[in-house]
């Protein structure tokens, strides 16, 4: 049975606003739900336009081959086919290649060779989707096979076949090299260390696999040049700019509309070839063109995540205080470097790898390699590689504890950054805004009954009775911890940009004469509940009932420019913009109130929704003020109650938490079962506690998925294994553990309402806790590491000292 933490108002104070206004701290039921529960959501595939055509994409069956010829004549003659598009045709429009969000290039349709299985080779546009797929079978492509490179280790070997032979100046398969931290300081600390603990691990390739796949309906009017592009996009404004750059279309003629998005998790951040092909086809044909990828296309060709080969070392002094960390990464980028990393940080934010610990010196080296796999490396429910970073340090800390014979909770507590050290400058340059790591760990230990489980473990693993009192049968208990720190809310414009565009975000707020408002945002919900949460921020700041605040996103003609939603940046950046624009309006409202009340603005007191003249009962409501903004203005004041704010965050926010997993491993067959899973999250002030808990349980399920089953792998020829939901296993309600949640509240000192991001914490923090739990159970059997997913045959192999194939 799932239990949930104590009421949030005991941690962050009772809401300031009434249940009618429903500001911060209220678990308001979601405004967007009425349409979804009645089947009236409108997703990309629900868009139907007059005369709309349907596109299907022919994909490469092989991982690496030269294209000898493409014969489209039979397909072009097939029933219902309007056009067959090839790379050669796109090259005529300079569209055969496109820039990626990481500053690389990517083939839209292959012209010279194919570089991964599933790469786009040709597209058929037809009057019906069934006919388009029929005609794909008639496109004849002759390939001349090339050796496939399926690991980054192979890729960087001298003499390896060059994957990106088309790229000027590219002489090897290295996509990037990068480093962070202070090498000399770190080397010096290692030189004086009493203990060094090391670990090599692979964070495997995974796929965000939102339930709605990616797609577009491109509607280009050949006469006016107006391009209306319906797009499954987490970042519609950035995508519009990219479209303008790729297609050479004037940006004001491009309108991106996102519709409702059926989950994103990073998968809908990149621009995909299908979007560009459909847009080009619509431009040439003069009719709307729809392309919706199948699940297999989604899994084999769009935005995979992770695939980091990591090695790390921690240096400790004689007292088991950690003094330095080293990490090196070899990243499998696939055929194109197409994830969206801030341009300064080639390995994303991996260099936050010192995690929750006070480590004086750290050094990170990173290398990305091109391989014959799909491009990606997207931040899957993750803020730019913080997931991999958190996993490495949390695994290392557990290995260290076991090697030292110290309880992993105690070793963590000993090395945590203390509450009084915030703001804390990390060895790699992050300024952690706030935290109470000991507090979160204490709550987690208490909630899970940590000491009780350790006592049961000592009995059961020594051959005594099992945890439930039944006779011992060889099964072993394991307890795993992860005390993660995240870094979210990119980001201040000094450090953060995507292809040069600074990572601010925006909010535009207009209160209409009747006191009802519309809030327009540059971020983009994919299920996070923005229509509710952001209305609550306005309610908090302006006192308008949240039900009276309509939230609009995802239409680039009608929302202010913003960088979109990923990396848990909506609340830290877009939420801050919302609070700030509401405050801007409140200051104008104060002047209007002074006019209406014939009082000095300085004599007015604000409570949510009302200004009162100090010491009197004379007051005016925000609704009356809004009416006056259009009907009864003081001399010289501009009409309206409206504003826009572009918010450049002064810093990132640093959510954190402590997670505990209790597992029972059966050494006979390598299976393991989660007996309890407790997650204590601290994301600062919780705007809508119900939604926050929902984000956490969702993230926990994906964390469990990665630890337990979810991965995409390849055979030696580069064939993708895991191209359907029958091979790429996603947990159902049956497998998913029954999480229990705890909470602490440590506000962000620089965010206007003290909130931090939360959508990704659980996916970032929890995988290490599962692996730590399984390894904890098996440490006495000589097992010190098992890579994810922790599949039974891997566990069995590790126990028996047998190298098993992945």
């Amino acid at each position, binding site marked *: 049975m799932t239990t949930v933490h104590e009421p949030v108002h005991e941690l962050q104070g009772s809401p300031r606003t009434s249940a009618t206004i429903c500001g911060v701290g*209220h678990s308001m039921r*979601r405004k967007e739900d009425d349409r979804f529960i009645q089947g009236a959501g409108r997703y990309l595939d*629900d868009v139907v336009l007059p005369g709309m055509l349907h596109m299907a994409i022919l994909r490469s069956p092989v991982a690496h081959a030269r294209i000898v010829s493409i014969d489209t004549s039979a397909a072009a003659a097939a029933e219902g086919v309007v056009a067959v598009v090839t790379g050669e045709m796109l090259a005529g429009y300079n569209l055969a290649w496109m820039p990626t969000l990481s500053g690389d290039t990517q083939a839209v349709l292959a012209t010279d060779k194919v570089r991964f299985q599933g790469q786009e080779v040709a597209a058929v546009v037809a009057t019906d989707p069934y006919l388009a797929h029929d005609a794909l079978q008639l496109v004849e492509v002759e390939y001349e096979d090339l050796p496939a490179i399926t690991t980054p280790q192979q890729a960087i070997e001298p003499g390896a076949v060059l994957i990106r032979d088309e790229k000027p100046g590219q002489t090897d398969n290295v996509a990037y090299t990068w480093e962070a931290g202070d090498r000399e300081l770190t080397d010096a600390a290692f030189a004086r260390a009493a203990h060094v603990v090391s670990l090599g691990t692979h964070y495997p390739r995974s796929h965000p696999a939102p339930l709605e796949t990616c797609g577009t309906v491109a509607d280009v009017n050949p006469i006016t040049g107006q391009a209306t592009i319906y797009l499954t996009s987490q970042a519609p404004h950035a995508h519009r700019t990219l479209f303008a750059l790729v297609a050479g279309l004037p940006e004001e003629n491009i309108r991106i509309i996102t519709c409702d998005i059926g*989950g994103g998790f990073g998968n809908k951040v990149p621009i995909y070839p299908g979007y560009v092909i459909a847009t080009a086809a619509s431009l040439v044909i003069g009719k709307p063109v729809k392309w919706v990828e*199948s699940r297999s296309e989604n899994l084999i060709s769009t935005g995979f995540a992770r695939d980091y080969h990591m090695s790390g070392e921690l240096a400790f002094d004689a007292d088991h205080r950690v003094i330095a960390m080293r990490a090196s990464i070899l990243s499998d980028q696939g055929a194109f470097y197409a994830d969206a990393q801030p341009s300064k940080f080639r390995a994303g934010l991996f260099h936050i790898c010192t995690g929750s610990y006070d480590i004086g010196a750290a050094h990170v080296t990173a290398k990305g390699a091109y391989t014959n796999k799909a491009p990606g490396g997207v931040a899957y429910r993750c803020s730019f590689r913080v997931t991999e970073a958190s996993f490495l340090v949390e695994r290392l800390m557990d290995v260290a504890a076991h090697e030292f014979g110290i309880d992993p909770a105690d070793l963590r507590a000993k090395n945590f950054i203390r509450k009084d050290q915030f703001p804390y400058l990390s060895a790699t340059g992050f300024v952690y805004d706030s935290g109470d790591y000991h507090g979160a760990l204490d709550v987690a230990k208490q909630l899970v009954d940590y000491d009780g489980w350790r006592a049961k473990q000592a009995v059961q693993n020594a051959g005594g009775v099992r945890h439930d009192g039944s006779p011992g049968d060889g099964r072993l208990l394991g307890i795993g911890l992860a005390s993660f720190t995240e870094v979210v809310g990119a980001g201040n414009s000094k450090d953060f940009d995507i292809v040069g565009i600074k990572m601010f975000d925006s909010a535009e707020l207009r209160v209409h004469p009747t006191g009802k408002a519309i809030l327009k945002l540059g971020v983009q919900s994919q299920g996070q509940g923005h229509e509710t949460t952001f209305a609550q921020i306005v309610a908090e700041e302006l006192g308008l009932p949240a039900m009276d605040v309509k939230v609009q996103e995802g239409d680039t003609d009608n929302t202010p420019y913003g960088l979109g939603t990923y990396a848990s940046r909506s609340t830290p950046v877009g939420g801050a913009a919302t609070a700030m624009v509401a405050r801007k309006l409140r200051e104008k409202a104060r002047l209007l109130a002074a006019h209406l009340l014939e009082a000095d603005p300085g004599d007015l007191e604000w409570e949510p929704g009302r200004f009162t003249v100090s010491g009197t009962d004379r007051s005016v409501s925000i609704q009356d003020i809004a009416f006056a903004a259009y009907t009864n203005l003081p001399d010289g004041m501009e009409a309206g109650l409206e504003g826009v704010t572009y918010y450049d965050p002064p810093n990132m926010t640093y959510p954190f938490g402590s997670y505990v997993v209790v597992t029972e491993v059966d050494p006979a067959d390598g299976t393991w079962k989660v007996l309890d899973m407790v997650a204590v999250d601290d994301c600062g002030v919780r705007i809508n506690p119900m939604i926050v808990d929902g984000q*956490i349980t969702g993230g926990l399920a994906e964390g469990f998925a990665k630890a337990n089953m979810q991965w995409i792998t390849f055979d030696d020829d580069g064939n993708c294994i895991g191209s359907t939901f029958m091979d790429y296993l996603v947990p159902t309600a049956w497998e998913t553990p029954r999480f229990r949640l705890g909470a602490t509240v440590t506000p962000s000192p620089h965010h206007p309402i003290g909130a931090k991001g939360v959508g990704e914490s659980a996916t970032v923090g929890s995988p290490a806790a599962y692996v730590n739990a399984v390894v904890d159970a098996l440490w006495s059997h000589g097992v010190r590491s098992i890579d994810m997913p922790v599949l039974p045959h891997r566990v069995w192999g590790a126990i028996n000292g047998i190298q098993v194939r992945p």
Partner: protein
Amino acid sequence: MQITVTVNGVQHAHDVEPRTLLVDHLRTGLGLTGTHIGCDTTSCGACTVLLDGRPVKSCTVFAVQADGRQVRTVEGLKGPDGLHPVQAAFKEHHGLQCGFCTSGMMLVGAALLAENPDPDEDEVRWALSGNLCRCTGYVNIVKAVRAAGATLRGEATTDPAAGDDVNAGESAVPGTPAATPVPVAGD
């Protein structure tokens, strides 16, 4: 092939290709887009509808197989008295986020409750295990289905674990918009 399918109580006669999937017939032929497509392998359940009261994945049923039969989609869940209890419970208990799996989850939940009015947590999780959700971690979906069962049994929906003692019952916020009209089926 000529088929007649009763969808949400309304009879529809159509000429369809034998290979037309039921999900495509519902979405494209009848304009009922509340049924979603999330995979092509009967794995995800986003396309779940009730065929003669039993949940089926409409991406692996041909439209012709529904000839002469009753189909219920999410658009037909709501009754003359308002939302079906599973719909109300999904909103009340935050059983949805992106909404893409929601139609299928609610229909499976409704079918389960029709058979077993008081399922325990294991029974709910097992019943839902043919449907994938990527957003919620299932916690609140399970909670919503069980709460809907309580409503159907005429019990008060007490939920000690709702976690929102701040303002329990706040879903009835004044000004909740009237329900969106149910799309009228084609022809």
